[in-house]
Protein backbone atom coordinates (compact mmCIF):
# COMPACT_ATOMS: atom_id res chain seq x y z
CA UNK A 1 0.00 0.00 0.00
CA UNK A 2 1.59 3.24 -1.16
CA UNK A 3 0.71 6.58 0.43
CA UNK A 4 2.10 10.08 0.29
CA UNK A 5 3.18 11.20 3.76
CA UNK A 6 2.74 14.68 5.22
CA UNK A 7 4.47 14.77 8.63
CA UNK A 8 3.84 18.44 9.49
CA UNK A 9 6.14 20.73 11.45
CA UNK A 10 5.42 19.43 14.98
CA UNK A 11 6.56 15.96 13.94
CA UNK A 12 9.95 17.36 13.02
CA UNK A 13 10.61 18.68 16.48
CA UNK A 14 8.29 18.86 19.51
CA UNK A 15 6.46 15.66 18.51
CA UNK A 16 9.33 13.81 16.88
CA UNK A 17 8.30 10.71 18.87
CA UNK A 18 5.11 10.64 16.80
CA UNK A 19 7.06 10.71 13.52
CA UNK A 20 9.52 8.04 14.67
CA UNK A 21 6.74 5.70 15.82
CA UNK A 22 4.52 6.33 12.77
CA UNK A 23 7.36 5.34 10.45
CA UNK A 24 8.26 2.25 12.52
CA UNK A 25 4.69 1.01 12.78
CA UNK A 26 4.11 1.67 9.06
CA UNK A 27 7.17 -0.46 8.28
CA UNK A 28 5.83 -3.36 10.37
CA UNK A 29 2.38 -3.13 8.76
CA UNK A 30 3.60 -2.74 5.19
CA UNK A 31 2.27 0.81 4.83
CA UNK A 32 4.59 2.37 2.25
CA UNK A 33 4.96 6.06 3.21
CA UNK A 34 6.50 8.46 0.68
CA UNK A 35 7.18 11.85 2.27
CA UNK A 36 5.99 14.76 0.10
CA UNK A 37 9.11 16.45 -1.23
CA UNK A 38 9.64 19.99 0.09
CA UNK A 39 6.27 20.20 1.89
CA UNK A 40 5.47 23.42 3.76
CA UNK A 41 3.69 24.25 7.02
CA UNK A 42 -0.13 23.97 6.87
CA UNK A 43 -0.54 27.27 8.73
CA UNK A 44 -2.35 25.61 11.66
CA UNK A 45 -5.26 27.80 12.75
CA UNK A 46 -3.23 30.97 12.47
CA UNK A 47 -3.45 31.78 8.74
CA UNK A 48 -7.22 31.23 8.67
CA UNK A 49 -7.55 33.99 11.27
CA UNK A 50 -5.95 36.46 8.88
CA UNK A 51 -6.56 35.62 5.25
CA UNK A 52 -8.53 32.63 4.06
CA UNK A 53 -7.33 32.56 0.47
CA UNK A 54 -3.69 32.71 1.55
CA UNK A 55 -4.42 30.02 4.16
CA UNK A 56 -5.96 27.68 1.58
CA UNK A 57 -3.27 28.35 -1.02
CA UNK A 58 -0.49 27.57 1.44
CA UNK A 59 -2.22 24.27 2.28
CA UNK A 60 -2.96 23.50 -1.39
CA UNK A 61 0.72 23.74 -2.35
CA UNK A 62 1.22 20.50 -0.39
CA UNK A 63 -1.62 18.73 -2.17
CA UNK A 64 -0.23 19.89 -5.52
CA UNK A 65 3.18 18.44 -4.64
CA UNK A 66 1.84 14.91 -4.07
CA UNK A 67 3.40 12.47 -6.56
CA UNK A 68 0.94 12.16 -9.51
CA UNK A 69 1.20 8.36 -9.23
CA UNK A 70 -0.18 8.46 -5.67
CA UNK A 71 -3.76 9.37 -4.80
CA UNK A 72 -3.77 9.28 -1.00
CA UNK A 73 -1.92 11.23 1.65
CA UNK A 74 -1.51 10.15 5.27
CA UNK A 75 -1.39 12.84 7.93
CA UNK A 76 -0.75 12.01 11.60
CA UNK A 77 -1.19 15.54 13.02
CA UNK A 78 -4.83 16.45 13.75
CA UNK A 79 -4.50 20.11 12.75
CA UNK A 80 -2.63 19.39 9.51
CA UNK A 81 -5.11 16.62 8.72
CA UNK A 82 -8.06 18.96 9.15
CA UNK A 83 -6.46 21.74 7.09
CA UNK A 84 -5.53 19.47 4.19
CA UNK A 85 -8.92 17.79 4.20
CA UNK A 86 -10.82 21.05 4.52
CA UNK A 87 -8.93 22.67 1.64
CA UNK A 88 -9.33 19.62 -0.60
CA UNK A 89 -13.09 19.49 0.11
CA UNK A 90 -13.49 23.22 -0.48
CA UNK A 91 -11.66 23.00 -3.82
CA UNK A 92 -13.72 19.98 -4.91
CA UNK A 93 -17.08 21.50 -3.95
CA UNK A 94 -16.66 25.19 -4.75
CA UNK A 95 -15.41 25.82 -8.28
CA UNK A 96 -15.04 29.56 -7.74
CA UNK A 97 -12.80 29.22 -4.69
CA UNK A 98 -10.97 26.29 -6.27
CA UNK A 99 -10.29 28.49 -9.29
CA UNK A 100 -8.93 31.30 -7.14
CA UNK A 101 -6.66 28.95 -5.20
CA UNK A 102 -5.38 27.52 -8.48
CA UNK A 103 -4.73 31.01 -9.76
CA UNK A 104 -2.53 31.57 -6.71
CA UNK A 105 -0.85 28.17 -7.18
CA UNK A 106 -0.12 28.97 -10.82
CA UNK A 107 2.18 31.77 -9.65
CA UNK A 108 4.36 28.89 -8.44
CA UNK A 109 3.71 26.78 -11.56
CA UNK A 110 1.51 24.38 -9.63
CA UNK A 111 -2.03 23.12 -10.06
CA UNK A 112 -4.31 20.99 -7.93
CA UNK A 113 -7.63 19.41 -8.88
CA UNK A 114 -9.84 19.29 -5.78
CA UNK A 115 -10.63 15.69 -4.83
CA UNK A 116 -7.62 14.15 -6.59
CA UNK A 117 -5.82 13.21 -3.39
CA UNK A 118 -7.71 11.52 -0.58
CA UNK A 119 -6.62 12.99 2.76
CA UNK A 120 -6.46 10.35 5.48
CA UNK A 121 -5.47 10.14 9.11
CA UNK A 122 -2.93 7.56 10.31
CA UNK A 123 -5.49 5.90 12.60
CA UNK A 124 -7.92 5.59 9.69
CA UNK A 125 -5.32 3.87 7.50
CA UNK A 126 -4.30 1.47 10.27
CA UNK A 127 -7.87 0.61 11.24
CA UNK A 128 -9.58 0.56 7.84
CA UNK A 129 -6.86 -0.40 5.35
CA UNK A 130 -4.69 -2.74 7.42
CA UNK A 131 -7.56 -4.05 9.52
CA UNK A 132 -8.07 -6.26 12.53
CA UNK A 133 -6.70 -9.62 11.30
CA UNK A 134 -3.41 -8.24 9.99
CA UNK A 135 -2.88 -6.21 13.14
CA UNK A 136 -3.66 -9.08 15.52
CA UNK A 137 -1.18 -11.22 13.57
CA UNK A 138 1.63 -8.76 14.33
CA UNK A 139 1.12 -8.60 18.11
CA UNK A 140 4.18 -9.98 19.91
CA UNK A 141 3.78 -8.32 23.28
CA UNK A 142 0.08 -8.07 24.14
CA UNK A 143 -0.83 -5.01 26.18
CA UNK A 144 -2.67 -7.19 28.70
CA UNK A 145 -2.87 -5.55 32.11
CA UNK A 146 -2.51 -2.02 30.77
CA UNK A 147 -5.41 0.42 31.12
CA UNK A 148 -5.48 3.09 28.44
CA UNK A 149 -7.67 6.17 27.99
CA UNK A 150 -8.25 6.72 24.26
CA UNK A 151 -8.12 10.46 23.59
CA UNK A 152 -9.10 11.49 20.06
CA UNK A 153 -9.06 15.24 20.62
CA UNK A 154 -11.24 17.52 18.60
CA UNK A 155 -10.04 17.99 15.05
CA UNK A 156 -9.52 14.41 13.88
CA UNK A 157 -13.20 13.48 13.84
CA UNK A 158 -14.58 16.88 12.81
CA UNK A 159 -16.18 18.84 11.34
CA UNK A 160 -17.95 16.46 8.94
CA UNK A 161 -17.43 13.40 6.72
CA UNK A 162 -15.25 12.01 9.48
CA UNK A 163 -13.84 8.47 9.32
CA UNK A 164 -15.32 7.79 12.76
CA UNK A 165 -18.29 9.05 14.74
CA UNK A 166 -17.92 12.75 15.58
CA UNK A 167 -19.48 12.46 19.04
CA UNK A 168 -18.47 8.99 20.07
CA UNK A 169 -15.58 7.67 17.99
CA UNK A 170 -14.54 4.05 18.66
CA UNK A 171 -11.74 3.12 16.26
CA UNK A 172 -8.89 3.88 18.65
CA UNK A 173 -10.77 2.02 21.40
CA UNK A 174 -11.19 -1.04 19.19
CA UNK A 175 -7.63 -0.97 17.91
CA UNK A 176 -6.33 -1.19 21.47
CA UNK A 177 -8.66 -4.02 22.42
CA UNK A 178 -7.12 -5.96 19.49
CA UNK A 179 -3.74 -5.35 21.13
CA UNK A 180 -5.00 -6.80 24.43
CA UNK A 181 -5.19 -3.54 26.40
CA UNK A 182 -8.03 -2.67 28.72
CA UNK A 183 -9.63 0.40 27.19
CA UNK A 184 -11.34 2.53 29.81
CA UNK A 185 -14.55 4.33 28.98
CA UNK A 186 -13.25 7.88 28.59
CA UNK A 187 -16.16 10.31 28.37
CA UNK A 188 -14.01 13.32 27.42
CA UNK A 189 -12.41 11.54 24.46
CA UNK A 190 -13.30 14.29 21.97
CA UNK A 191 -13.08 17.27 24.31
CA UNK A 192 -10.77 20.18 23.62
CA UNK A 193 -7.26 20.28 25.15
CA UNK A 194 -7.17 24.08 24.97
CA UNK A 195 -5.23 24.27 21.71
CA UNK A 196 -3.10 27.40 21.53
CA UNK A 197 -4.70 28.80 24.70
CA UNK A 198 -1.67 27.59 26.68
CA UNK A 199 0.16 30.40 24.87
CA UNK A 200 -2.58 33.02 25.11
CA UNK A 201 -4.52 32.57 28.33
CA UNK A 202 -3.07 29.92 30.63
CA UNK A 203 -5.88 29.71 33.22
CA UNK A 204 -8.35 28.99 30.42
CA UNK A 205 -6.16 26.17 29.09
CA UNK A 206 -5.35 24.80 32.55
CA UNK A 207 -9.03 24.24 33.31
CA UNK A 208 -9.50 22.20 30.11
CA UNK A 209 -6.32 20.21 30.75
CA UNK A 210 -7.36 19.53 34.36
CA UNK A 211 -10.71 18.08 33.26
CA UNK A 212 -9.04 15.69 30.83
CA UNK A 213 -6.45 14.50 33.35
CA UNK A 214 -8.95 14.21 36.22
CA UNK A 215 -11.30 12.13 34.11
CA UNK A 216 -8.53 9.73 33.07
CA UNK A 217 -7.42 9.35 36.71
CA UNK A 218 -11.02 8.78 37.80
CA UNK A 219 -11.38 5.99 35.22
CA UNK A 220 -8.23 4.30 36.51
CA UNK A 221 -6.20 4.81 33.29
CA UNK A 222 -2.45 4.11 33.38
CA UNK A 223 -1.86 6.43 30.44
CA UNK A 224 -3.63 8.60 27.89
CA UNK A 225 -3.24 7.71 24.20
CA UNK A 226 -3.21 10.69 21.90
CA UNK A 227 -3.12 11.22 18.14
CA UNK A 228 -2.38 14.95 18.03
CA UNK A 229 0.85 16.88 18.73
CA UNK A 230 -1.02 19.78 20.35
CA UNK A 231 -2.96 17.49 22.69
CA UNK A 232 0.26 15.70 23.62
CA UNK A 233 2.10 18.94 24.30
CA UNK A 234 -0.68 20.47 26.37
CA UNK A 235 -1.39 17.38 28.47
CA UNK A 236 2.27 16.39 28.90
CA UNK A 237 4.36 19.56 29.05
CA UNK A 238 1.66 21.59 30.82
CA UNK A 239 0.71 18.80 33.23
CA UNK A 240 3.07 20.16 35.91
CA UNK A 241 1.99 23.81 35.56
CA UNK A 242 -1.68 22.70 35.58
CA UNK A 243 -1.13 20.69 38.77
CA UNK A 244 0.59 23.69 40.38
CA UNK A 245 -2.20 26.01 39.36
CA UNK A 246 -4.81 23.81 41.04
CA UNK A 247 -2.57 22.84 43.99
CA UNK A 248 -2.76 19.18 43.12
CA UNK A 249 -0.53 16.60 41.47
CA UNK A 250 -0.72 14.38 38.41
CA UNK A 251 1.47 11.62 37.07
CA UNK A 252 -0.25 10.64 33.84
CA UNK A 253 1.95 9.65 30.88
CA UNK A 254 0.67 11.00 27.55
CA UNK A 255 1.86 8.91 24.60
CA UNK A 256 1.14 8.80 20.89
CA UNK A 257 -1.01 5.80 20.00
CA UNK A 258 1.58 4.66 17.46
CA UNK A 259 4.20 4.40 20.22
CA UNK A 260 2.10 1.86 22.13
CA UNK A 261 1.20 0.09 18.90
CA UNK A 262 4.94 -0.38 18.38
CA UNK A 263 5.35 -1.78 21.90
CA UNK A 264 2.61 -4.32 21.14
CA UNK A 265 4.50 -5.27 17.96
CA UNK A 266 7.51 -6.12 20.13
CA UNK A 267 9.62 -3.06 19.29
CA UNK A 268 11.86 -1.50 21.93
CA UNK A 269 10.84 1.80 23.57
CA UNK A 270 13.97 3.51 22.26
CA UNK A 271 12.97 2.63 18.68
CA UNK A 272 9.66 4.39 19.23
CA UNK A 273 10.73 7.75 20.63
CA UNK A 274 10.02 6.97 24.27
CA UNK A 275 11.93 9.13 26.73
CA UNK A 276 10.96 12.36 25.00
CA UNK A 277 7.77 12.78 27.01
CA UNK A 278 8.00 14.99 30.11
CA UNK A 279 5.93 12.59 32.25
CA UNK A 280 7.85 9.35 31.82
CA UNK A 281 5.88 6.48 30.29
CA UNK A 282 8.46 3.69 30.49
CA UNK A 283 8.07 3.02 34.25
CA UNK A 284 4.37 2.32 33.64
CA UNK A 285 5.14 0.02 30.71
CA UNK A 286 7.69 -1.92 32.77
CA UNK A 287 5.34 -2.18 35.74
CA UNK A 288 2.25 -3.28 33.83
CA UNK A 289 3.43 -5.37 30.90
CA UNK A 290 5.24 -8.67 30.66
CA UNK A 291 8.67 -8.29 29.03
CA UNK A 292 8.89 -8.46 25.25
CA UNK A 293 8.94 -12.03 23.88
CA UNK A 294 12.43 -11.59 22.41
CA UNK A 295 13.77 -10.58 25.83
CA UNK A 296 12.34 -13.66 27.55
CA UNK A 297 13.70 -16.11 25.01
CA UNK A 298 17.16 -14.52 25.06
Amino acid at each position, binding site marked *: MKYAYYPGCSLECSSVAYDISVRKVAEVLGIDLREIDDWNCCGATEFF*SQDELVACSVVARNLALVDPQIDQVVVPCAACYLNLKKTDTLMAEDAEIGGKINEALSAGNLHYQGGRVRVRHMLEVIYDDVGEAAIRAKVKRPLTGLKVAPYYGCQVVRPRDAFDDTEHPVKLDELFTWLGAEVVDYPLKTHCCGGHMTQISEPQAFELIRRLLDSAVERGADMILTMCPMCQLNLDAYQGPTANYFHTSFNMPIVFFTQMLGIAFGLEPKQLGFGKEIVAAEPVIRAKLAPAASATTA
Partner: protein
Amino acid sequence: MITVPTDERSMTFMDEVVADAPGAERIVHCMQCGSCSGSCPNGPDMEYTPRTLFALIEAGQRERVLSSNTMWCCVSCYACTTRCPQNIPITDIMYALKRLALREGLAAKTDAPALARTFTGLLEKYGRSFEFGLASRYYLFNKPMAMLKMGPLGLSMFTRGRMSLVPTKIRQLDQLHAIIKKARELGGTA
Protein backbone atom coordinates in the same frame (compact mmCIF):
# COMPACT_ATOMS: atom_id res chain seq x y z
CA MET B 1 -44.29 51.50 -0.29
CA ILE B 2 -40.85 52.10 -1.73
CA THR B 3 -38.82 48.96 -2.15
CA VAL B 4 -35.07 49.03 -2.57
CA PRO B 5 -33.66 46.35 -4.88
CA THR B 6 -31.35 44.02 -2.96
CA ASP B 7 -28.29 44.84 -5.04
CA GLU B 8 -28.71 48.56 -4.39
CA ARG B 9 -29.29 48.64 -0.66
CA SER B 10 -26.28 49.18 1.55
CA MET B 11 -24.53 46.11 2.83
CA THR B 12 -25.73 45.01 6.24
CA PHE B 13 -23.34 43.62 8.82
CA MET B 14 -24.89 40.21 8.22
CA ASP B 15 -24.01 40.53 4.50
CA GLU B 16 -20.42 41.37 5.40
CA VAL B 17 -20.10 38.26 7.55
CA VAL B 18 -21.74 36.08 4.91
CA ALA B 19 -19.41 37.43 2.20
CA ASP B 20 -16.36 36.53 4.22
CA ALA B 21 -16.69 32.78 4.77
CA PRO B 22 -17.78 29.99 2.41
CA GLY B 23 -21.10 28.53 3.55
CA ALA B 24 -21.71 31.37 5.99
CA GLU B 25 -25.03 32.22 4.30
CA ARG B 26 -26.56 29.48 6.43
CA ILE B 27 -26.31 31.85 9.40
CA VAL B 28 -29.77 33.17 8.49
CA HIS B 29 -31.15 29.79 9.57
CA CYS B 30 -29.94 30.22 13.15
CA MET B 31 -32.90 29.58 15.43
CA GLN B 32 -31.14 30.53 18.66
CA CYS B 33 -31.22 27.00 20.07
CA GLY B 34 -27.90 27.45 21.90
CA SER B 35 -26.38 24.07 20.99
CA CYS B 36 -23.22 25.95 19.99
CA SER B 37 -22.92 27.79 23.29
CA GLY B 38 -23.55 24.62 25.26
CA SER B 39 -20.88 22.75 23.28
CA CYS B 40 -18.20 25.42 23.46
CA PRO B 41 -15.30 24.54 25.79
CA ASN B 42 -14.39 28.22 26.09
CA GLY B 43 -17.92 29.60 26.42
CA PRO B 44 -17.43 30.70 30.05
CA ASP B 45 -14.61 33.03 29.02
CA MET B 46 -16.49 34.68 26.16
CA GLU B 47 -18.13 38.09 26.44
CA TYR B 48 -20.93 36.73 24.29
CA THR B 49 -21.47 33.04 23.70
CA PRO B 50 -21.87 32.05 20.02
CA ARG B 51 -25.66 32.06 20.29
CA THR B 52 -25.71 35.61 21.67
CA LEU B 53 -23.13 36.68 19.12
CA PHE B 54 -25.35 35.48 16.27
CA ALA B 55 -28.28 37.45 17.70
CA LEU B 56 -26.05 40.54 17.78
CA ILE B 57 -24.99 39.98 14.16
CA GLU B 58 -28.62 39.72 13.16
CA ALA B 59 -29.30 42.97 15.05
CA GLY B 60 -26.49 44.68 13.12
CA GLN B 61 -24.39 45.37 16.22
CA ARG B 62 -21.21 45.58 14.17
CA GLU B 63 -18.82 47.26 16.59
CA ARG B 64 -20.01 45.32 19.61
CA VAL B 65 -19.46 42.04 17.79
CA LEU B 66 -16.13 42.89 16.19
CA SER B 67 -14.59 44.28 19.38
CA SER B 68 -15.71 41.35 21.54
CA ASN B 69 -13.32 38.67 22.73
CA THR B 70 -15.66 35.86 21.63
CA MET B 71 -13.98 34.75 18.41
CA TRP B 72 -10.52 35.08 19.98
CA CYS B 73 -11.56 32.50 22.59
CA CYS B 74 -12.38 30.05 19.79
CA VAL B 75 -9.64 27.43 19.34
CA SER B 76 -11.32 25.77 16.33
CA CYS B 77 -12.38 22.52 17.99
CA TYR B 78 -15.48 22.44 15.71
CA ALA B 79 -17.75 21.04 18.46
CA CYS B 80 -20.38 23.71 17.65
CA THR B 81 -20.16 23.12 13.89
CA THR B 82 -20.63 19.39 14.38
CA ARG B 83 -23.68 19.85 16.60
CA CYS B 84 -25.47 22.75 14.90
CA PRO B 85 -28.87 21.38 13.80
CA GLN B 86 -28.93 23.94 10.97
CA ASN B 87 -25.48 23.03 9.61
CA ILE B 88 -24.09 26.51 10.08
CA PRO B 89 -20.29 26.47 9.70
CA ILE B 90 -19.85 28.27 13.03
CA THR B 91 -16.09 27.78 13.33
CA ASP B 92 -15.58 29.24 9.86
CA ILE B 93 -17.77 32.21 10.82
CA MET B 94 -15.55 32.72 13.91
CA TYR B 95 -12.54 32.83 11.57
CA ALA B 96 -14.36 35.36 9.35
CA LEU B 97 -15.10 37.53 12.39
CA LYS B 98 -11.43 37.42 13.41
CA ARG B 99 -10.43 38.58 9.93
CA LEU B 100 -13.04 41.36 9.90
CA ALA B 101 -12.00 42.54 13.36
CA LEU B 102 -8.32 42.66 12.33
CA ARG B 103 -9.12 44.49 9.10
CA GLU B 104 -11.22 47.07 10.93
CA GLY B 105 -8.70 47.52 13.73
CA LEU B 106 -11.32 46.48 16.27
CA ALA B 107 -9.70 43.26 17.52
CA ALA B 108 -10.14 42.77 21.26
CA LYS B 109 -7.15 43.14 23.52
CA THR B 110 -6.01 39.55 23.63
CA ASP B 111 -2.69 38.03 22.64
CA ALA B 112 -4.31 35.84 19.99
CA PRO B 113 -3.71 38.19 17.01
CA ALA B 114 -0.06 38.59 18.00
CA LEU B 115 0.40 34.84 18.21
CA ALA B 116 -1.23 34.42 14.80
CA ARG B 117 1.00 37.08 13.19
CA THR B 118 4.19 35.74 14.76
CA PHE B 119 3.31 32.22 13.60
CA THR B 120 2.56 33.13 10.00
CA GLY B 121 5.51 35.54 9.87
CA LEU B 122 7.83 32.61 10.59
CA LEU B 123 5.96 30.40 8.12
CA GLU B 124 6.56 32.98 5.40
CA LYS B 125 10.21 33.31 6.33
CA TYR B 126 11.08 29.61 6.40
CA GLY B 127 8.17 27.70 4.87
CA ARG B 128 7.96 25.68 8.05
CA SER B 129 6.90 26.52 11.56
CA PHE B 130 9.76 27.29 13.97
CA GLU B 131 8.65 26.48 17.48
CA PHE B 132 11.59 28.01 19.35
CA GLY B 133 11.42 31.17 17.26
CA LEU B 134 7.67 31.38 17.78
CA ALA B 135 7.84 30.96 21.55
CA SER B 136 10.78 33.33 22.07
CA ARG B 137 9.53 36.08 19.76
CA TYR B 138 5.92 35.90 20.88
CA TYR B 139 6.76 35.98 24.60
CA LEU B 140 9.49 38.61 24.26
CA PHE B 141 7.26 41.10 22.47
CA ASN B 142 3.95 40.33 24.17
CA LYS B 143 4.52 38.99 27.65
CA PRO B 144 8.20 39.32 28.60
CA MET B 145 7.54 38.57 32.27
CA ALA B 146 5.91 35.25 31.40
CA MET B 147 9.08 34.33 29.52
CA LEU B 148 10.87 33.73 32.83
CA LYS B 149 8.20 31.23 33.82
CA MET B 150 8.58 29.48 30.46
CA GLY B 151 12.30 28.89 31.03
CA PRO B 152 12.13 25.54 32.86
CA LEU B 153 9.53 24.18 30.43
CA GLY B 154 11.61 25.23 27.42
CA LEU B 155 14.70 23.67 28.95
CA SER B 156 13.01 20.33 29.59
CA MET B 157 11.75 20.30 26.00
CA PHE B 158 15.25 21.14 24.76
CA THR B 159 17.02 18.45 26.79
CA ARG B 160 14.60 15.85 25.45
CA GLY B 161 15.34 16.83 21.88
CA ARG B 162 11.92 18.40 21.39
CA MET B 163 13.03 21.94 20.68
CA SER B 164 15.49 23.02 18.02
CA LEU B 165 17.31 26.35 18.12
CA VAL B 166 17.62 26.47 14.34
CA PRO B 167 14.73 26.59 11.87
CA THR B 168 14.16 24.19 8.97
CA LYS B 169 13.80 25.93 5.63
CA ILE B 170 12.05 24.55 2.59
CA ARG B 171 14.04 24.52 -0.68
CA GLN B 172 11.52 26.25 -2.90
CA LEU B 173 10.82 29.23 -0.69
CA ASP B 174 10.51 31.49 -3.76
CA GLN B 175 7.68 29.35 -5.05
CA LEU B 176 5.80 29.59 -1.75
CA HIS B 177 6.33 33.36 -1.67
CA ALA B 178 5.00 33.72 -5.22
CA ILE B 179 1.87 31.74 -4.26
CA ILE B 180 1.27 33.80 -1.11
CA LYS B 181 1.83 37.07 -3.00
CA LYS B 182 -0.63 36.08 -5.72
CA ALA B 183 -3.23 34.95 -3.16
CA ARG B 184 -2.98 38.34 -1.43
CA GLU B 185 -3.37 40.17 -4.75
CA LEU B 186 -6.50 38.20 -5.53
CA GLY B 187 -8.23 40.06 -2.77
CA GLY B 188 -7.54 37.98 0.25
CA THR B 189 -10.62 36.14 1.33
CA ALA B 190 -11.92 33.36 -0.83
